[in-house]
């Protein structure tokens, strides 16, 4: 059986944002810390978590819209960013050994992203803020075509724009209109058309349906699925709504305060989650079925998410976790495989019921 190829891979990805202070007192928002995962070609990886958990930052950092502060990003087998601080890895996670038998360190790499921007695209969360109000829809979609010189002449450019709008269910007369003339769902379609303009292989979908009404949300989710089937796209689908993510994703990763805490096949994750945070997240979702809702027992986590400026030592969930003990405060739990393709980071997996 041939292995399915990884299209995108991140290893030990870290993103710290400076937050004031000087010298030794310099402080950082630890938005993403030591996150590793791989996305296979043609699949959808969902990323869920509460606001401020770093899921959006992860998406933007792996596109290098923010320069990572540490870690390695690999796209289609080529390293596009490497901080040079971590040993190179085989695809199974074991370090590659050099001639002297020592793990081989990666070289510092930061490639020019322009050619990769044609392959990696993003759809932003807020369709009201991510479209320039002074550009027509045609120009918004056409901008990428101009930058990458994808059209020989004006007519070809125009044809391309109209074809793209048709792909997302808009028609040619929409090209001359401005963003304010559209509803939220239509604007999100424009955002998708813009991402598709360069014929990408990989799209980061950053909460693309969160700002939409439920009835419109389903239209856009279906469109993402259709486009994936027709064009063989790979998605990183970021959202806080676990029901939507479960619907569209093959695998789901759960983040909490900058860390990936659990990663598994989507059915496995919903049905047999092992991490206490994932469990409480699943139980907290209001179910749109009165009988189930009345009988279900919520696991309500106490308190609020701590500040990423000064996260708890050891396991970051420990301040809210019912299972926490001294070990959780002292040691960062390793992200290890607990079942086939099922990863989790917790010291007390045997005790979690």
């Amino acid at each position: 059986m041939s292995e399915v190829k990884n299209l995108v891979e991140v290893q030990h990805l870290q993103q710290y944002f400076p937050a004031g202070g000087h010298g030794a007192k310099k402080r950082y928002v630890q938005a993403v810390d030591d996150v590793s995962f791989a996305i296979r070609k043609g699949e959808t990886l969902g990323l869920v978590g509460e606001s401020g958990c770093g899921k959006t930052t992860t998406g933007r950092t792996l596109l290098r819209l923010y320069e990572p502060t540490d870690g390695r990003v690999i796209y289609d087998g080529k390293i596009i960013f490497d901080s040079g601080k971590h040993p190179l890895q085989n695809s199974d996670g074991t370090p590659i050994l050099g001639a002297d038998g020592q793990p081989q360190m990666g070289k510092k790499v930061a490639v020019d992203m322009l050619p990769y921007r044609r392959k990696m695209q993003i759809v932003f969360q807020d369709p009201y803020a991510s479209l320039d109000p002074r550009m027509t829809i045609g120009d918004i979609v056409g901008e990428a075509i101009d930058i990458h010189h994808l059209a020989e002449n004006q007519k070809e450019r125009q044809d391309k724009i109209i074809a793209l709008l048709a792909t997302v269910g808009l028609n040619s007369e929409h090209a001359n209109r401005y963003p304010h003339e559209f509803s939220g769902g239509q604007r999100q379609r424009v955002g998708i058309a813009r991402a598709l303009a360069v014929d990408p292989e990989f799209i980061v979908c950053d909460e693309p349906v969160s700002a939409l009404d439920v009835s419109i949300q389903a239209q856009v989710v279906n469109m993402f699925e259709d486009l994936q089937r027709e064009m063989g796209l790979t998605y990183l689908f970021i959202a806080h709504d676990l029901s939507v993510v479960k619907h569209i994703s093959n695998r789901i990763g759960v983040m909490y305060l900058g860390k990936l805490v659990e990663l598994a096949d989507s059915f496995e994750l919903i049905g047999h989650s092992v991490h206490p945070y994932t469990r409480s997240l699943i139980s907290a979702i209001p179910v749109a079925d009165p009988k189930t809702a009345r009988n279900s027992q919520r696991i309500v986590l106490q308190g609020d998410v701590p500040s990423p400026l000064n996260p708890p030592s050891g396991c970051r969930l420990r301040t809210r976790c019912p299972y926490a003990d001294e070990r959780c405060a002292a040691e960062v739990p390793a992200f290890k495989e607990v079942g086939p393709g099922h990863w989790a980071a917790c010291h007390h997996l045997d005790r979690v019921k």
Partner: protein
Amino acid sequence: MSEKLLEIQDERLSFFTQAGEVKALNNVSFSMEQGDVLGIVGESGSGKSVTAYSIMGLTAYPGKLIGGTIHFNGHEIEKMTEKEFRKMRGNEVSIIFQDPMTSLNPVYTIGNQIVEVIRLHTNKTKKEAYARAKELLELVGMNEPEKRLKQYPHELSGGMRQRVMIAIALACEPKLLIADEPTTALDVTIQAQILELMQELRAKLGMSIIMITHDLGVVASMCEKIAVMYAGHIVEYGTTDEIFYQPGHEYTKGLINSIPKLNAQGKERLIPIEGTPVDLLNPPAGCPFAPRCTNCMKVCLREMPPRTDLSDTHYSLCWLHQKQQAEQGGKAE
């Protein structure tokens, strides 16, 4: 029989804007008894917030009540003056807004803002009001209330701020609490905390709640009755079980079908409601949902469907019911 706390009859309300008349509410009628929890669901612009605001007289210019009656706790809302409203708000009915970030004043401490409400509505002294404020913060489950009273809104998280909003709303023990999307801006785990708190408080204080939301999951767990709104009409009204298990209106069915189910076994395709929401400036002549309805008939485009009672507690506005009844009647004869 218990007295009706709230009775709305054929309420019509419009906003007179420069672009023309926006009919925000069209013949809205429903009633509530003391202790009821009613959910109002619908998409943005369907009139769910306006319905609730009109009970408190918060639909100021260019909004105008152009017909119908609202009876609340012995008041005739449609005839009340601003001065009378001021007495009623806070004391008998209060509201929690959607966004706790913007509904608290950033330049006053939490304590200040709660005390202000208490002193406006009662003749407690400053000291008594502070003691009451502390009590309220304890009631909504905030730790270290003493310390919180001296803090400013920016020092609190979203969930904490929403707790403060609830504390302010409950300051004078209102009979009716209107919650306008109280958890939309919050994360699911915090949302679960707030919903649990609201249920506890309702059991403790026995108030009625109107829960406005677009999230069917929230109403399923919280409410006993649900009103589904579309384009300023209550298109369907019934108990929670009736709405979820025997939905009558095509829009309600569409809404329920379009949400992804977390416990679904296979990969099913979502069934969206096609088309876009109505433009309230130019509403269609007949049923407002007709342009998006899959079972649209000719009559739907011409005339607004009448109310069809499906049970004592359940009604819906749809021509399909009329057609069904006519067919059944025909067979019986």
